[in-house]
């Protein structure tokens, strides 16, 4: 989180992720989602801003003919949402132009979720989907061999229209969701994801318990004090072997 703030301050260009890797959270935080019109699975229409007003909104991207990640991701999200406290809405947006409201209703029934539980399934127009993809780093690519879309699993936590957290992958841990929802209520999350493999982390964060545990970096923080004391002891030991000045006679240098 802190790194992302730094990156935003630096104004690093928003690198679009390579189409074979999921988007990196740091690069899309605090982006505003475009207020696009959506067609909901019950046939009604709504704007994205209506769905994200008043409550946090969890957004994910699916297509109903998916033979891969979509259903497991939705089920994982359902499981995490059942354990999470506080009010929020969930929106699954289809990026497949072939999907119809009926297809989306069928998917909702298949996963076992309903609008009255805060779930919405919706279709965005292709041009609007492109606008959403641009600010979220989400991508999808038609693979004619498998006749499926390649796409990452992605869940956005949207607060007042802006991306507050993002999670890429096929599952949504309950601890992540709870932590992100607490963030929407102004509580700071202690986690600090860092890109790549980091040598000497100060602390490791356990999202399940919310606790921080020491790591090797914390030892490095104590090293300077230790080295200074050792150096001082060495210097003074050497000095004492060559005491030249009698301290009895005078305080001043003779």
């Amino acid at each position: 989180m802190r790194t992302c703030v730094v990156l935003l301050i630096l104004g690093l260009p928003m690198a679009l992720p390579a189409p074979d890797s999921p988007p990196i959270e740091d690069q899309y935080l605090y982006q505003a989602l475009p207020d696009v019109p959506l067609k909901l699975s019950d046939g009604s229409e709504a704007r994205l801003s209506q769905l994200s007003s008043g409550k946090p909104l969890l957004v994910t991207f699916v297509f109903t003919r998916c033979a891969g990640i979509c259903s497991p991701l939705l089920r994982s999200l359902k499981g995490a949402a059942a354990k999470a406290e506080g009010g929020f809405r969930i929106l699954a947006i289809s990026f497949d132009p072939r999907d119809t409201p009926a297809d989306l209703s069928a998917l909702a029934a298949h996963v076992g979720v309903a609008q009255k539980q805060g779930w919405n399934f919706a279709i965005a127009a292709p041009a609007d989907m492109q606008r959403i993809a641009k600010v979220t780093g989400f991508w999808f690519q038609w693979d004619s061999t498998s006749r499926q879309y390649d796409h990452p699993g992605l869940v956005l936590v949207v607060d007042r229209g802006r991306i507050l957290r993002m999670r890429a992958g096929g599952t949504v841990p309950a601890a992540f969701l709870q932590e992100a929802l607490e963030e929407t209520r102004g509580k700071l999350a202690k986690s600090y994801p860092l890109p790549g493999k980091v040598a000497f982390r100060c602390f490791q964060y356990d999202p399940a318990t919310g606790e921080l545990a020491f790591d090797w970096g914390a030892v490095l923080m104590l090293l300077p004090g230790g080295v200074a004391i050792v150096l001082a002891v060495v210097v003074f030991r050497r000095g004492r072997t060559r005491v030249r000045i009698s301290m009895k006679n005078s305080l001043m240098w003779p």
Partner: protein
Amino acid sequence: MDAAMDRIRRVTLVWMITALVLFPAMTLLGYLIRRFQASPTPAAHPEWFYSLLTLHALGMVGTWFVSSMAGVSYLLSRYVRPSPAVSLGAFFGTLAGVVLVCLATVGGFFGAGWYFLFPLPLYPNGAWPAWATALFFGALALLGTSWLVWALDVLRAISQRYSLSAALCLHYLGASTEPEVPPIVLITTVSLIVCISGLVSAVIVLVLFAAHWAGWLNVDALLMKNLTFLFGHTLVNISLYLGLGIVYEVLPGYAGRPWKTNRIVAMAWSSILFLVLFAYFHHLYMDFAQPGWVQTLGQIASYFLSLPAAAVTIFGVLNLIYGASMRWTPASTLFVLGVLGWAIGGVAAVIDATVAVNFVFHNTLWVPAHFHTYFLAGLVFFVLGFIDHLGRELSPGEEPKGLSKFTVALLVVGAYGFVATFYWSGASSVPRRFAAYPDEVMRGAAHARTSLVFIHVFLLGMILYLWMAGRRCVRALFS
């Protein structure tokens, strides 16, 4: 005259004259960056603000560290013998470092701030070239190495006369007062051990920066921030302590009374050795990835770091002056005023080191307000007092009394007026480090315009001071 002592005097004069050149130059930079903030419209080249701010801050911190270090080394030579050659080596190292920093900032626009927080220096996004970052880090390495060797040499000199426990006055904590140890020895020993820890921390930071730059490893930004502030905070902190060491040693001469170490003085100063390593956590209160207990430790250490030493010193100064037939010269006046400024800045710092307050004040101009108070109206006064004292000792002669008083008055009015505008801005939520203020906090520009008046007053005082004390030092060097 003892040839070794003569060399020490000359090296000290060289350091002090350098400080008298660097200080007005860095003050002019401060004036320029405050002018950016005073403007109601954004400047055409805001990148200048950040490179000048970097140069101003590092230049000031460096100037006051080396001059207080040179001051205590000179005064310590009454009891022990620091090497003038090592001091001279540190001088040339510092000079080369200053040139590199100037090239990096003014030539290359390096503007990551004087504590260059990771990863900004490596990702300037076109604001400055990579060579400017390399020069800046080269300068830090050079300065750090020169100062480390210098600090080790002064400790070596102390070690030739005192054991470590004696130099830390641990025997005073029991019943014994033998051997008698002057406060300057205690303060210098504590400060230099702490200084070494800060410099070692800087070495680790530079190595990690280099490793990250070379693509060998990813670095934890939180670790870098901790280590960077362990370096930056301790360097600033001990510069003040070394300045106080000067006051403990010189002020008694003006009061005609001794200021000796006793159990309370020993306790207050030796405890710093441990506390200072944790006090810097108060720079990371906003870093929520740092556990809560670390923040609490930072608050406690900050309180116990400042309060005992301040209480003991303020009480000591009052005790020294009360009923004494004080000789009031610019030196003694500046020492006493400096302790006052240090105390005022210290109170503001303690307020800011309180977690609950810091959540509101952090990143407002309150922070520069407190550290400018104890620097400009504290440490700067200690060193200017010392330079005046040294100049009079080595090249006697009197200026008109009225002129001396007027000079000190200008410095005091200028310094307090200037920092008052920072406090004023801080209390009204004006952010720090803004080259131009957005409409919501445009009041900051008005405060900055007011401060320009006081900076002029301060600069006028500085010119008069240079004419008096500066000339004396130059005369003494070439006599």
